[in-house]
Structure formats: structure tokens, C-alpha cells
């Protein structure tokens, strides 16, 4: 199947530091791809490169075979939607107005939103189960509600691929679940692909089709959750000892923290033997 988004040996640097080096990645249709990695590994940067916001020093970013740089901004926005990690709403737009903004890439300069655009926006709100919030001011919403509204906005863009930068960052476990459920259902039912940068290894392992771990700007590992989420893999990437086993309820990989220098309390399921005594 033709990948929607291709990163071919992409490298990027800020000033003198190489934030991304030689990353190859493909995202196909109807895939939920999770990007994991420690802080500072370049996950957000990678996502921005995928979204066309940052231009790589070397390598190519292709959308359906065409270089992203060849697209006009508006055109690209009709294909790729981006939901950032933090949102500052300086002015109090209503929820509906925010979601309607997602229709902008499809409108000409002086064109106003039509009935059809309105319907698309409402439908997007329905999909994220936030239709009842439509008339509220965006400032009044809780973190979880805001996140859903922004995903609705991304949906309203009618894109082929949605990029999410830590969508569950400030949410409690219930909302974390909800968000992952939501994006998983989007991939299933709405025929979009989603790439999500996240720290929630368990949830990513549970919901994503594929996972990628970034470490120090390089691709550390890539593959199915089972392949990527292993004790050795996670411990090495995050530089912290973990134990990975199976979640008895879901069958997905489950990550448990063990401690920095491998202070294991014993038991056969322990990982490697402690290297040095403290």
C-alpha cells in the first residue's frame, strides 16, 4: 500500500545541535503510529517536520509521493492536521467557532463558512462527543474537553493524516483512555491516519498499530508494539530500568518501573541482575 507520509533520511538541527538524524519513517493509510522516546529525543521536532512546519537540513518529506515543500500551505492543511501540546487561547472563541476554524483550508479568502461547513464541524464535535459544548467559550473547558475539541477541529479539516503532539499530556487516566479510544476509533471508522507523540507507553502499546522509539534524534527501534516494547528496548531507550510483561486483561505489553540501578525486589520476572550494588 502506498504510504501517505514518508520521511526519507531526514535530519534537522537547531543552531549547532542535531535534533534529528537520519530518520526514516513511513505512515500508511488507516494506521495509528505512536512515537515514543525520552524527553529531548526530538519527538516534537519530528512531528513538526512531518507537518511541514520545519524544513529538514537533509532528506525528504513526501506526502503521497510529492515533496511537502512543493505544496502550498493551504493545500497541505487540507491533507495534514496538527494538534499541538499546549494551547493558548488569548480570546474567547466559542467551541463551535474553534472547530469551524478547521474548515479554513477549504475556504477562499473572503469566503464564509457554508451550511455544509457547519454540518462538518458539528459532525466532528459529535464524533468526539463534545456537541453539547458547542456554544460554550473555549476558556470554560477542562483540559480533557479542550483536547477533544481540538481533535474535532483537526477532524473538521477533513485531513488524511492527523498529527498529535502528546495529546494526553495533562489528562488524568480516564481522559487518557478516552483520547486513545477516540483516536483509535478515528483510524478505524474515519479513514484517517494518526501519528501520536506520547509518553504513555502502555496506552500506545495497547492502541497503536506501529510504534517508533526515538532516542537522541535517531530511530532507536520501530515495529509492532510487541516488537518495540520490551524490557531491554525500553530500558535502553529511556535509560531507566523497567520490566515489561503482558497485561493479563488486554494482552498488550505492560511497563513497570523497576528503579534506576536495578534494585529488584526479587522474583523470577525480574530483568537483568543488578549490575552494581548501591
Amino acid at each position: 500500500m502506498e504510504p501517505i507520509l514518508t520521511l526519507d533520511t531526514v535530519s534537522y538541527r537547531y543552531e549547532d545541535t542535531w535534533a534529528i538524524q537520519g530518520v526514516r519513517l513511513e505512515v500508511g493509510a488507516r494506521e495509528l503510529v505512536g512515537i515514543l522516546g525520552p524527553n529531548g529525543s526530538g519527538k516534537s521536532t519530528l512531528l513538526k517536520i512531518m507537518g511541514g512546519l520545519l524544513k529538514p537540513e537533509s532528506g525528504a518529506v513526501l506526502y503521497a509521493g510529492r515533496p511537502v515543500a512543493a505544496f502550498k500551505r493551504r493545500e497541505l492543511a487540507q491533507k495534514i492536521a496538527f494538534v499541538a501540546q499546549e494551547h493558548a487561547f488569548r480570546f474567547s472563541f466559542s467551541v463551535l467557532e474553534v472547530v469551524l476554524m478547521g474548515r479554513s483550508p477549504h475556504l477562499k479568502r473572503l469566503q464564509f463558512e457554508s451550511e455544509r461547513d457547519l454540518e462538518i464541524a458539528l459532525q466532528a464535535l459529535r464524533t468526539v462527543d463534545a456537541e453539547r459544548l458547542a456554544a460554550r467559550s473555549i476558556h470554560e473547558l477542562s483540559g480533557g474537553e479542550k483536547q477533544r475539541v481540538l481533535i474535532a477541529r483537526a477532524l473538521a479539516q477533513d485531513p488524511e493524516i492527523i498529527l498529535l503532539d502528546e495529546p494526553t499530556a495533562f489528562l488524568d487516566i480516564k481522559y487518557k483512555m478516552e483520547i486513545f479510544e477516540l483516536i483509535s476509533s478515528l483510524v478505524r471508522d474515519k479513514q484517517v491516519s494518526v501519528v501520536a507523540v506520547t509518553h504513555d507507553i502502555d496506552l500506545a502499546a495497547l492502541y497503536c498499530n506501529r510504534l517508533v522509539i526515538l532516542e537522541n534524534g535517531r530511530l532507536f527501534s520501530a515495529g509492532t508494539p510487541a516488537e518495540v516494547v520490551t524490557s531491554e528496548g525500553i530500558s535502553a531507550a529511556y535509560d531507566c530500568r523497567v520490566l515489561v510483561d503482558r497485561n493479563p486483561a488486554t494482552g498488550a505489553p505492560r511497563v513497570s518501573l523497576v528503579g534506576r540501578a536495578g534494585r529488584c525486589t526479587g522474583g523470577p520476572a525480574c530483568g537483568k541482575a543488578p549490575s552494581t550494588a548501591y
Partner: protein
Amino acid sequence: MILHRRVTPGKVVFISMVMTGILAGAILFSLWLGTADIPFSALCRTLLGESTGGTTELIVLKVRLPRVLLAGLVGFALSLGGAVFQALLRNPLAEPFILGVSSGAALGAIIGIMLGFSFQFGIPAFSFAGALVTILLVLLLGTRRMGMESSTILLTGVIINAFFTAVIMFFVSTSTDSRLHTMLFWLYGDLSQSHFGQSALIAPVVILAAVVLYGFGRDLNLMTLGDEAACHMGVDVERTKIHCFLLVSLMTGLVVSLSGLIGFVGLIVPHLARMAFGPDHRLLIPVSAIGGAVLLIVCDTFARWVVSPSELPVGVVTAFLGAPFFMILLRTRGSQWNRS
């Protein structure tokens, strides 16, 4: 059926028409009130072209009318500029003077006054030249490889304002008595002795700029979400910033060269408009612009009336609006300033 707020073309047209009606009322009111008592009927007849006797005609057509029109034009431009800058800089405290164009214009005018140029053409020309120089400076100093970052450009504005203000203070402190009065009067913002000719010259440019800026309405909505977010939704952020900055600065430079520094209008009116009609710029822009015209006409009328037969510079009246406005803002929306 969900009750929701959104801006439609119908809404924009309707509200604009209502505001224009209010503007017409304000104009009539301002023409009627003044040092000389002119009965309303005489006013109407004069405006309709009938001859009503020397003094009335003279005062209404040659003294008050040009002044009211200029007040409207200046209020229009400054409020529109304020709304756009508040979006561009994502800062509710922004107004068209924040980037220094006004102090450049002021310095130009001060120099023109010192060199003895005429009030009708020389001084406005110098003032506008000062504004242009400042625009260039801001572009040179405030933009980088990455383009116009709002924090950088705000700082640039502060620096330019500080420098030009220092130079102005120097000139004011070393000037002689009669020049001093003239300089201070200009700096406080004054609309007396306005001319049709001047307003007629700049009005088309201001209106044209306003129309172009209206076209950026939706983009400005998106820009309030942040450069990156706007970019991801298809806005050419750099182009939008530069074009809007140039258009607003041009408008501001033009009106300031005729009116002096009339502060607070560009700050207050967009806020009031937003409180009444919401933050969507496709409605905010016309409401701010027309509302600004109304406000300044009313302020100027008050300036003419309150110490009659003398008159206050209108900038003094608008300055008095500042503190109570911020008070209200703080009380009603204090919590929102802290939201991220």
C-alpha cells in the same frame, strides 16, 4: 437546535449598517454642539445645501464638518489598527502606537514645527516621513531569519519608542516659548483647524487599507491561536504578519500626521467591540473601525464643549478614558488575563 455564535455575512452586513447609523447620529450630534449656538433646524438646512446666513454656514461647513470628518477618520484607522495588532501580537494591550510608528511620526512633526514648516502640508509631510522611517527601522531591526516573531517585534517597538521619545524630550526641553506650545499641542493630539483637503487626501488610502485588512479577517482569527497552529491550518504566517503590519502602520502614520498622538482609542475600542460581538475578526474589524469613529467624534465634541470658549486637545479627553476602562476590564475579566 443548538444556540451557537458564529459570524455570517448577513450578521456582518446588518451590524455594520446599524453601526453606520449610529455613526451618522454621532456626526449630526457633533455638528450641532459647539461654542456657537446653532439651532438644529439651521444645521439641517445648512447640510442640505440651503443658505442659512454667513456665520452658521461658516461654522458648520468650514469649522465643524472638516473636524468631525477627520475625527471619524482617525478613530476609524486607529481602532482598526488596534484590533489587528492585538491579534497579530496576541496581546490584548496592543494598539497601533506600540511599535513606535507614532513616536517616529511625532518626531517628524516636531522637527517640522522647529523648522517652521506649514501646518497644512509641511508638518504632516514631515510627520509621515517620520512614520515611514520608523516602519523601515522596525522591519530592519525586528525581523530575523525566522521572520517576524511577536516578542522580538514588541521589543523593537519598545526600543524605538524609547529612543524617539528621548529625542522628542530633548527638542521640547530646548525649544522657545511659542514653539513649545505648538509642539505640546501637537503631541497631545488635536483636531482643530482641520481641512477637507487633508482628509480627502488620506481617506481613500485608509479605506483601501481597511478593505485589504478585512480580507485578512479569518487569517487573523487563526493567528490568535499561535503562529504554529495558524501555519498548520494553512495561513501564510509571515506574509500575513508583514502585510498587516505594513497596512496598519501606513494607516496609523497617515492619520497621526494630521491629528497628532491620540491615544487609547486604538486600545479601548477593539476590547469593547470584542466584549459586545465576540473575537471573530470578520465582525470585529468593521465594528472596531466604525465604533472607533463614533468614539473619537464623541470625544472631540466633548473636548470642544467642556471648557468652551477654550478647547481641550482631544488626546487629553481620550487619556481620561484609559484608567476607568482598565478598571472595568480588570473587574469583569481579571481572571481571564491569567488563563493560558
